[in-house]
């Protein structure tokens, strides 16, 4: 059979496998709660990572404001989905604003509105900020994320965001398919954008913005587009995070969150969507299977390792980021995406190495 048919069949098989796996986990949620939790968190972070990659990796705009846009999406989603009957108890200190009390939306609508708010904020912020050089853009977006956080926690916002008390009683996902489907759709749209004419224009800006401009690409218009779209999906991911965590406050959205996403993007490969997804699963999965690093009672072969105590896992992650940046800049995927040809090529090369080794 030719390559195209082979690839189509393989794709169908892969999708069937994934769906089957999800059904398997969903069938017995209590014994698979760890796995479900990891999968849900991984897909949420994958969406932000791809959105960050769209901005940083594909358009070359180094923005560190992700935590701020996630906060907007999270708060809007939370506010709209907390059940009306619970609201008075959630806003117990200062009460909820009258017009907000009965305003409720189903999950998907709330997520979309959260994304739109984040996009609107990005549109406004973009106007002054996008003409700055890369280093300044990074600091300015970081600054805006902090301003957003201060704004959400401000006393005068108490009746809307519950100020510094945070929001709880956010209804969670009904099953594992909801977040996975949402993530697939979000990432799918971003991939379509990247392979479209506009995606190519973004890459041109990344490669050489002066040449891109000379080829008729309006820099501000396209940078703003990339920024707004990236922030839209970042906001949706923030909303999904709120639903996953069921309670949020502004401390959830400190700069550390952005740095964690940056780690995922760098590890997976700046400029690779597949890499961001893989990176997200590795880092979030790592939270579980590297858990022993934080455990001061853990023993290897009966020997107690004095290094292992709470906080060590994050140190290991930090060292990992430094190692990747210094010695393995391209990350896992470099700028490549997943392809069946690529995968088979990888195995062929490994086989060649083995057989060549055997013969000599």
């Amino acid at each position: 059979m030719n390559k195209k048919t082979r690839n189509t069949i393989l794709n169908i098989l892969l999708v069937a496998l994934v769906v089957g796996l999800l059904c398997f986990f969903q069938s017995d949620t209590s014994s698979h709660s760890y796995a479900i939790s990891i999968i849900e968190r991984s897909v949420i972070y994958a969406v932000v990572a791809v959105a960050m990659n769209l901005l940083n990796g594909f358009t070359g705009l180094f923005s560190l404001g992700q935590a701020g846009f996630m906060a907007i999406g999270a708060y809007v989603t939370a506010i709209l989905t907390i059940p009306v009957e619970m609201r008075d108890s959630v806003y117990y200190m200062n009460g909820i604003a009258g017009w907000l009390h009965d305003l409720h939306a189903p999950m998907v609508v709330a997520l979309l509105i959260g994304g739109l708010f984040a996009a609107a904020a990005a549109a406004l912020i973009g106007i002054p900020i996008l003409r700055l050089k890369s280093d300044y853009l990074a600091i300015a977006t970081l600054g805006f994320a902090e301003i957003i956080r201060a704004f959400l926690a401000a006393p005068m916002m108490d009746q809307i965001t519950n100020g510094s008390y945070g929001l709880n009683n956010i209804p969670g996902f009904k099953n594992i398919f909801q977040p996975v489907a949402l993530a697939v759709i979000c990432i799918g749209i971003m991939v379509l954008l990247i392979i479209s004419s506009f995606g190519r224009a973004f890459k041109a800006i990344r490669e050489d913005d002066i040449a891109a401009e000379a080829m008729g690409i309006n820099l501000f218009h396209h940078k703003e587009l990339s920024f707004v779209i990236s922030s839209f999906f970042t906001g949706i991911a923030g909303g999904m995070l709120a639903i996953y965590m069921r309670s949020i406050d502004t401390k959830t959205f400190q700069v550390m969150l952005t740095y964690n996403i940056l780690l995922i993007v760098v590890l997976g490969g700046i400029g690779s969507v597949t890499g961001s997804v893989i990176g997200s699963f590795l880092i979030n999965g790592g939270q579980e299977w590297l858990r022993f690093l934080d455990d001061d009672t853990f023993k290897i072969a009966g020997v107690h390792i004095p290094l292992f105590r709470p906080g060590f896992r994050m140190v290991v992650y930090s060292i990992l980021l430094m190692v990747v940046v210094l010695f393995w800049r391209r990350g896992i995927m470099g700028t490549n995406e997943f392809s069946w040809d690529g995968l088979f090529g990888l195995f062929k090369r490994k086989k060649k190495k083995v057989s060549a080794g055997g013969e000599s």
Partner: protein
Amino acid sequence: MSATTFAQHLLTGISLGGAYALIAIGYTMVYGILRLINFAHGDIFMISGYFMIFAMASFPWFIAIPVALIGTVILGVVIEKAAYKPLRSAPRMSIMISAIGVSYLLENLATYLFTAIPKAYPEIPFLKKILTFGGITTSLVTLLTPVLTVVLVVLLMQLINHTKIGMAMRAVSKDTEASRLMGIKVDNTISMTFIIGCLLAGIGAILYFTDRMTVYPYSGSLPGLKCFVAAVLGGIGSIPGAVIGGFIIGICETFLVAFGYSTFSDAFTFLLLIIILLVRPTGLFGEAATDKV
């Protein structure tokens, strides 16, 4: 607000500004020479605080202070050699991510080693001595900080403008390759820049934390960003500019807190940054550079 209260706040602001100025100098010098925003500078300042805590636990203050300062300087130089030097020819994004990575590492390392619970900063006996004059009550450290800042800056300007190493620093800031061709030892010059920057940050840490009284892993994160804003406000690359920027931000922050807007004092600093970048990106004393097309 009465005159004495105003004067009291002004004094506090100038003192805070002095500490900020010392840290801001580190940012502006490193940016001038490497075109890098050293995201980790604020965290080096934080680790310096911890060094002091451990030094004071083992030595009397007149030994502890030099030990802590030397430790800070060594940390800065190690970071430069390990995390920045290998990436000098790499694309800009890589070295920025490296700086972020160092910041990330230092914060997580501090959380791991010292826990997130704030640790008490030791008292250096004479610094906390209370003085009163003209209706104003203050501690010695508050008065000492701006004075010490000005003295150190004057010394630094002497170094930059009248010594060989200073000239080397100015040359490398302008054109690294040409400096290398002229026989200047670029690596040593860059190390020297970090040594001075970290030394000043270490002194700033002593003055700042003596007032604050506690250190925790994120103590340096926000002050670090604020000091970067101070450096931009003054004109990135300009040392007098960084000092003036530091004082302006210190005073503004103090008065904002005094007027009851403490939740906004951090946001205000970032708002200031954005306004500067839009209205006058070169800052108060910086020079504009045009790109050759």
